[in-house]
């Protein structure tokens, strides 16, 4: 009589489609994958390379950043996250049918769609705009064009009044070019700066020798032989130059979105959960327009940090995991940069709104507190009825983040208005004393606040804040508080399944390692991190988060309940886990929560009953130098592990009974290799570029795997342009890479754990030479080619 009912296992996995692979698209894709390991994720973009750090392009222009350092994600991004990438262009959406129309004629269905296709640079429609040497600044290609032209340039005209224009002016001026800066209005970056701040920055520019011209724009561009030779301004003046940079803003790419009937203004319009007017269509990043709730003004932000937060909010929203009680407000975000050498930060309102007709409140309720004027600094806070609603600091960012915290939580700053900008005033400490929570940093996942509350409650019971302890001692030595105290070494946490003898039919679940950077979800829905296919488990049963050094379990409203040490957690509530807690999900599945020392085999993890040298066996180990790694060996299940390099140079692979000798490891140092564990013995196959190996049970294969779970011809390993690939050739039991079955050729990375049916193997590549070192490596003749080691079988085709 089976005491359990297996789950149906036929849950449909959702299909998410993201248009765009900039920072918004990529951030959202990462979250979707983290939260749902099974979902189908597709990214559609016309540029195959994932996101680069766009704000760093100014440093690229300055020659300070190499191009290869601009990439914010590795080339293996899609593969790492198991994302299908389509290098295509979207031409239309049919929201009713949940279908995307691509330029190639292909149609792609989606369950939920994220529009993160960004914006393009605005440009002018004046004569001469097509001349060589006239460019906008948006993409790497734009900057490359500028860089390649710089050698023939003496004078540059930059048009625009935003930060991009300012940064370009600064960079080019520092590189020694004559720069003219044209601004449409009297102020710089008028969305954020007030006239005082703007003047201060413009003064910096002028002091540095930039020709700043206010209320003057490009009326026409003149050239010779197709190349720019000068600019005619709206005041009729002619400025000779060899390069014209147009940095007058961005336009969201909304053509196909608007055509599809989705509400757009300057950009896509969304609600606080990033939902557009069409069902299941979300949007994030530069394609959005945002409206400021206090002024009602509509802006296209075009900034990095808001894009990341919008993407995070959108992704959580698509997963139905967005904490809508604390929505991210794009108007309050911490805006920090350098403005022509001056440290700048702002949050919230930066200018007192002019009293508008019909506006419910007048100017009177606003108050500006401005710091004592000092050279090249300008700092102010805006209060509304005493409550902090905005700040702007230029030249000195002390307390800026604390001010944002006060703004986020609507703190009344009137009591300290007089000392706010004093040098020795620590606003952060003052807010601490008031018990103001930390600043809101962005979009939050559902449950975050419950988890944080649980942690702070737990901490409160055992932690005394240092400032409340009288630290007055005699000697100055003692007076210095130790910078950090607490647990001696970092631990990792695992859930160990407790098998019960009364229900022998229950599945045996492997040990689950908890993460410190992501939430572990437990349930019957495919895609959760800890998948338990039993009917007594809810689809989304519980989750375990990590915050401030603690692991916290939260029940997700499960039918049969989640228990910590036999106490049922209320639906939605959370509990901090401690060592050896027994976690039960439903009636039958029990885990023990264990914390253990991170470094496997470190002797410090020995039980304390074994102080020092206690046994002859221990002595011997130390003598031979294999001191570490062995202590933990017996407790390490093969699934957990990473290859452990031991003190004597040998390599212990999880699942192998004997380590690889040091001399062979030395050879691995020079060449990528496949290490196959057969009957507990490691076998090394060095891989050569250009090789193509077939693995299988059949003796005609290049590498024969005598195991019944292996198909006759099971898989192939071949070298591609960028490394070695493994490919399943229609084997019965499949090829698993890092516990995931692969369908397509998979590029191997060092440490990948490969399963050919039941045969375990590891891909070892100790020198995955980055491009910059390639030349050196080629020159180094690897001695291993002449060394013959018996245990090594070098396969040759």
């Amino acid at each position: 009589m089976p005491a359990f009912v297996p789950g149906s296992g036929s849950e449909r996995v959702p299909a998410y489609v993201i248009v765009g692979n900039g920072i918004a698209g990529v951030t959202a894709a990462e979250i979707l994958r983290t939260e749902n390991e099974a979902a189908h994720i597709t990214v559609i973009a016309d540029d195959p390379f994932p996101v680069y750090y766009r704000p760093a392009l100014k440093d690229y222009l300055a020659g300070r950043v190499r191009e290869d350092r601009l990439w914010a994600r590795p080339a293996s991004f899609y593969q790492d996250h198991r994302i299908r990438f389509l290098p295509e262009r979207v031409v239309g959406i049919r929201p009713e049918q949940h279908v995307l129309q691509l330029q190639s004629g292909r149609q792609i269905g989606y369950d939920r769609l994220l529009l993160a296709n960004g914006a393009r640079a605005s440009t002018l429609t004046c004569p001469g705009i097509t001349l060589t040497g006239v460019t906008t600044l948006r993409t790497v290609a734009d900057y490359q064009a500028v860089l390649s032209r710089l050698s023939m340039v003496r004078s540059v005209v930059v048009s625009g009044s935003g930060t991009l224009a300012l940064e370009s002016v600064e960079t080019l001026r520092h590189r020694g070019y004559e720069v003219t800066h044209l601004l449409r209005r009297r102020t710089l970056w008028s969305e954020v700066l007030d006239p005082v701040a703007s003047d201060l920055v413009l003064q910096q520019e002028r002091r540095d020798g930039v020709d700043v011209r206010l209320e003057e724009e490009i009326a026409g561009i003149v050239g010779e032989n197709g190349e720019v030779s000068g600019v005619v301004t709206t005041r009729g003046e002619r400025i000779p130059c060899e390069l014209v940079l147009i940095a007058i803003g961005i336009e969201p790419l909304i053509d196909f979105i608007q055509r599809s009937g989705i509400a757009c203004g300057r950009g896509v319009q969304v609600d606080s959960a990033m939902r557009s007017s069409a069902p299941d269509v979300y949007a994030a990043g530069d394609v959005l327009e945002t409206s400021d709730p206090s002024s009602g003004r509509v802006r296209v932000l075009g900034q990095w940090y808001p894009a990341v937060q919008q993407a995070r909010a959108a992704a959580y929203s698509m997963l139905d995991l967005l904490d809508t009680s604390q929505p991210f407000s794009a108007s309050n975000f911490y805006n920090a940069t350098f403005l022509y050498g001056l440290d700048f930060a702002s949050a919230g309102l930066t200018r007192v709104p002019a009293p508008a007709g019909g506006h419910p409140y007048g100017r009177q309720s606003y108050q500006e507190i401005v710091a004592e004027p000092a050279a090249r600094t300008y700092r102010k806070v805006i209060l509304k009825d005493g409550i902090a609603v905005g700040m702007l600091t230029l030249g000195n960012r002390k307390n800026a983040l604390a001010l944002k915290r006060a703004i986020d939580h609507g703190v009344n700053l009137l009591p300290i208005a007089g000392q706010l900008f004093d040098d020795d005033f620590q606003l952060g400490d003052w807010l601490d004393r008031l018990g103001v929570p930390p600043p809101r940093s962005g979009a939050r996942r559902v449950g975050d606040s419950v988890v944080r509350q649980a942690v702070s409650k737990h901490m409160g019971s055992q932690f005394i804040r240092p400032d409340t302890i009288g630290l007055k001692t005699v000697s100055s030595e003692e007076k210095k508080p130790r910078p950090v105290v607490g647990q001696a070494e970092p631990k990792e946490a695992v859930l160990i399944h407790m098998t019960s003898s009364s229900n022998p039919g229950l599945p045996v679940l492997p040990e689950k390692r908890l993460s410190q950077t992501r939430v572990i979800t437990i349930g019957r829905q495919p895609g959760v991190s800890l998948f338990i296919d039993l009917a007594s488990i809810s689809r989304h049963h519980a989750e375990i988060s990590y915050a401030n050094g603690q692991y916290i379990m939260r029940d997700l409203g499960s039918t049969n309940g989640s228990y910590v040490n036999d106490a049922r957690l209320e639906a939605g509530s959370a509990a901090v886990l401690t060592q050896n807690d027994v976690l039960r999900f439903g009636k039958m599945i029990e885990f023990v929560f264990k914390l253990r020392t991170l470094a496997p085999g470190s002797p410090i993890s020995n039980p304390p009953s074994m102080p020092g040298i206690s046994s002859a066996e221990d002595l011997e180990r130390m003598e031979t130098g294999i001191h570490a790694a062995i202590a933990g060996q017996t407790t390490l299940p093969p699934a957990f592990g990473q290859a452990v390099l031991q003190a004597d140079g040998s390599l212990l692979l999880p699942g192998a009974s004997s380590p690889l000798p040091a001399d062979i490891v030395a050879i691995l140092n020079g060449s990528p290799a496949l290490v196959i564990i057969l009957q507990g013995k490691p076998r090394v196959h060095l891989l050569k570029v250009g090789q193509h190996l077939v693995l299988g049970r059949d003796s005609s294969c290049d590498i024969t795997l005598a195991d019944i779970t292996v198909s006759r011809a099971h898989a192939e390993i071949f070298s591609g342009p960028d490394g070695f690939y493994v490919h399943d050739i229609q084997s019965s039991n499949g090829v698993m890479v890092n516990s995931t079955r692969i369908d397509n050729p998979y590029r191997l990375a060092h440490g990948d754990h490969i399963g050919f049916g039941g045969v375990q193997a590891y891909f070892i590549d100790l020198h995955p030479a980055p491009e910059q070192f390639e030349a050196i490596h080629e020159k180094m003749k690897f001695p291993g080619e002449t060394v013959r080691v018996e245990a090594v079988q070098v396969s040759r085709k």
Partner: protein
Amino acid sequence: MQTQAPTVKAPLVEGIQHRPDVKPLSDEAIRFEIDMCIGCDRCMRACPVPLSSSVSIADLNRATILDAIAPHIARFTDECVMCGSCVPVCPVDNHRDLLMLSLKQRLGISWNGQVDMSSLLNYLPEGWNIPRLLSRLREQPMFREPHMVPDNYLLHLVANSKLMTLMPGTTLMHEGEFGRELYLILEGHFALSSAGFDGHDLPVAVLQRGEYMGEHGMLTGQPRHETARAQTPAVVLEVPETVMHRLMELVPALPRFFAMLDDTRSIESILKRMALFAGIDDAGIRWIVQQAQVKHFAREERLFSEDGSNKPVRETLHILLEGFVKVARRTLAGTGRDKSDERIIAYRQHGDYFAGGLDLLGDSRAVTATAITRTRVAEIPGQALTSFFARYPEIGQRFQARLHEYRESAFVTGVLDASNDGAMAGLHALVGDGVVEGTEVLVIDLDKCIHCNECEQACARRHGHSRMNRKGMVVGNISITTACRQCQDPVCLLCSRAGIARLPGGEVYITESCIGCGICAERCPYDNISIVSLDEEMEHGEEHGQDNSLFQKFRRLMQEGAGKERGRKLLPMAPASALGPLDINTLQVPRDAVAEMRKKIAIKCDLCAGYSNQACVQACPTGAALRVQPTAFFGSTEEILRRRAE
């Protein structure tokens, strides 16, 4: 967000002693800062760690917020010295140093990791093995408790130290030389001796296996007190100061242990030297040492004041174990030096003593004593003294006689110090600006100096950059240049990379391991260390049409060294400090040449260590530049006072 209320997530992190105020970021703040990062790479460009040139900001960001930490990031994290160079350059106000701290916390303590014992095995004496080595180390009193100092820490300690087998008669330490190594005796006997008043060696002690030597030098930076000679064949572990410091950070019981022991030994040795206590047997000395209570005072801290609560019990004997102390008395407001309301009566330095609040001056009024440098004082309470005098009446008499003598002389100094303001001001300047702390000072006789600046130029010619500035404090006709004075107890000597070290002769020099993080420069109270960027130098070369390829950079570095004068003698390399957590990763991450190239270095005067002369003195056409030992040249503070008074 540094404004965040304190968090509890705070595993121990090594190597941040110089940042006692550091406050780790919360998880949320880490996430916020990573989201803020725009990848401009300025932090990595500002980073002095050579490896930073091969770590991309994208990789670093991902390691900071994801579970996996790639080997090259782990190694970079370990090498990060938390100097904070990355913070002011960040356009978006991030705290990259605190982000690195969070990575350090996650990686844990490197000494919990595995030990590379391979190199050590070659040095083991005949017949020794690791268990024997460990059991010998366990004989050391501070290592007795395996649960305080785990085996793995000891193995790391050994792997980073030097194991030496010595023949009888070998001298390990020379009295008067500078050295900061600790010697653990694993086998054999050592005779400790010290030069007495008559210049003959006085045997101090015989140490054997299970004991150790050199902790005084290690803890205080002072020259060795004793000479140590092997009496039998011996095995010794020479532990560099940085390695010991690392262990002390990990095992907080160790610093306490050493402090206590060093206190006892220094009091003992001072007492033995004091004429006052001459002729007392060891037991008597030991008894009085046991009565002493040791206190530490930071710069500017008051030992006791005339009216304050720190007023000592009358007749307490204060012995200065370390540092300088200013003894002053309150006067009418505005009549003292620099219009202050105090009059300085005397300066006292290590080895000096005074009783009660009286400074043995015989005045019934108390005085205020303020530490000028880091100061350590042993206090022997009056009761203990009384019973001591009862046991050794001749000491009591000597003490009384001394007191009487002082009362007589006090009349003279007490009256005259105010009438000789110019001289006093000079003295105060010398002491206040720490010149007397120095062991060797470059001075310029302004009567002879023709302001040709040849000294600075000669320095630059020899070292590439001038390590001195001719201008400085002027006392009388003497200008004290702005250049390192090789302090007796240099505060700069605390480098986790062993980038600054001291030669036995006392020269404090920058080693080849220096990466120019600037922590020592910040610690120097006299601004005598500066940081130069090697990159800029290279870029400078480029402007002058030099080939700037990597190969050329190397060639130049190899052929010319950092300086421009050819054929420089290389200074001894300080031993590399602990490699770090991830010694195993040295195999996985190629230690390639680019990643090893330093971006910056510190420069400071090392008295032209390695050369036969000093460039500045040599180059002076008029003989105005002189190297002097401040105590010999200006006289000890006491003598100056007396001389000026006459």
